[in-house]
């Protein structure tokens, strides 16, 4: 996934680049704002644009309109104006979403994820890891001939492990993920939930499916 940053403040641009790269996005940037940038934007391949509204000599709304005439790339507006006017304008000029400064990391990442998802809906029915199946529709976990139903937050936890097999997942990462899914857990409750999940997995004959990596986090597969 490649994101194009259109932001004139070099410091913010730099930090956004680091943040998004840490979250496995590829980044392209516009750095010269002295000329008309719409043409340059059109030339760059991208899956999403983060577009600042207040740019030197030009404004984001107009740029958005021009881009949308040529291609249907999703655009998230970024602004420090919080008035109703800019929100309305962003909708009218064809923007897909709207985020206000100062960037809240979690909100920004979630909006990006959501906007990209809208463009490419991916529907799995089930995921397999090492002979264990997670049924995404019925929120069941199946192993050999046994299966057990999961609660919503147990399911979310396990889902995150399933989409990241063989990778060490930190508690922080799990918390980030769960918070984005509207489960506002704290550290202790997360541990409780993981232990409860492990007990359930043991009930269908899965011993140590989720392994603890000391001082680092957890892993499956």
């Amino acid at each position, binding site marked *: 996934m490649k994101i194009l940053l259109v932001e004139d403040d070099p410091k913010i641009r730099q*930090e956004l680049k*680091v943040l998004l790269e840490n979250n496995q996005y590829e980044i392209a940037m516009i750095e010269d704002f002295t000329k008309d940038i719409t043409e340059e934007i059109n030339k760059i391949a991208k899956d999403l644009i983060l577009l600042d509204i207040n740019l030197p000599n030009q404004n984001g709304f107009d740029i958005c309109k021009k881009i949308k005439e040529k291609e249907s790339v999703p655009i998230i507006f970024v602004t420090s104006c919080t008035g109703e006017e800019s929100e309305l304008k962003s909708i009218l000029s064809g923007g897909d979403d709207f985020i206000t400064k*100062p*960037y809240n990391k979690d909100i920004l990442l979630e909006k990006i994820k959501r906007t990209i998802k809208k463009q490419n809906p991916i529907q799995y029915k089930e995921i397999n890891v090492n002979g264990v199946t997670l049924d995404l529709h019925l929120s069941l976990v199946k192993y050999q001939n046994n299966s057990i139903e999961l609660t919503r937050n147990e399911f979310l936890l396990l889902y995150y492990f399933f989409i990241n097999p063989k990778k060490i997942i930190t508690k922080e990462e799990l918390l980030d993920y769960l918070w984005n899914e509207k489960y*506002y857990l704290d550290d*202790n409750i997360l541990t409780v939930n993981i232990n409860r999940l492990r007990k359930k997995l043991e009930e269908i004959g899965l011993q140590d499916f989720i392994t603890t990596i000391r001082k680092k986090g957890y892993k499956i597969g």
Partner: protein
Amino acid sequence: MINYLEEKIGLILWYLTFILLQLVIMFVLDMDATFLIFSLFLYLILLSIYLIVSYLWKTKKNKKIKRLVDELDEKYLVSELIKKPKNLENEAYYYVLKKATKAMNDKITELEHKYQDYEEYIETFVHEVKTPLAAISLYSDNKKDHELKQEVKKIDNLVEQVLFYARSENTEKDYFVKKIKLSEIIHQVMLQNKDYLLANKIIIEVENSDVFVATDEKWVIFILNQILNNSIKYMDKDEKRIKLNVIEDKNKVILEMKDNGCGIKESDISRVFDKGFTGSNRKKEHSTGMGLYLCKKLCDRLHLNIAIESKEKEYTTVTIIFPKSSLHE
């Protein structure tokens, strides 16, 4: 009436002197007075009629002017509506009124302009200051510096207060009402405060929040942010809890936010929405006394009802009621 007679005393005395003089002349010249006395008597009657009629006419006119002022919303504009008087004595008053209201209106316009300039400056300031704030915020995220992040969040909160204070004073409608799920609003508030909540080990429960309300998203986010920040600030137990619950009924949606913090003294509770009120027992620093005041003010503008209930040392519950409008259908 007595005032009026007093005012006309000159005229009455003049008449009486005139009658008296005629009587004296008649008496001295020893004339047959019957006819003259009759005519003098007629004079008196005519005078009385004149006085009564002019009294009634004038009181009516006065009433009309008074009513004109009473019915006017912007009373300082009254001089535009009053007719220019024809008689000599009122002319000066009319002149004074005109001049005074003109001077006053000029002053009002000047102040309005100044205020508008100030407000525009505040808006610009807030927007400008958000750019470096955004840079620091991203920097602290990338460096995983949670302490710095929390401090930035505090500054941002104060800056938002300034912005919304300026907006709440503005009489124009500058909010944007749309239909939105309460859970989405709560979600954004939670994400904004995630580091703060996790650092303080607060247990969050959110229930039944998948309900639509028709309101301005950003204003409500600001309001919930203030309330949440208060809750976190005044936590005093080992196990810290904040519970959000939504109750929907036929014509309203009720959002309850309950914390198990230190609560509010009974004697203070009626004043928590007052501007600058920081509580009589709260020793916490960094209280501007603006948070809840702004919440109340913004709620009033959005036609939301906000109420607070508390038991000292046990809990505080803030309730916000969203009326269901035709937008729901």
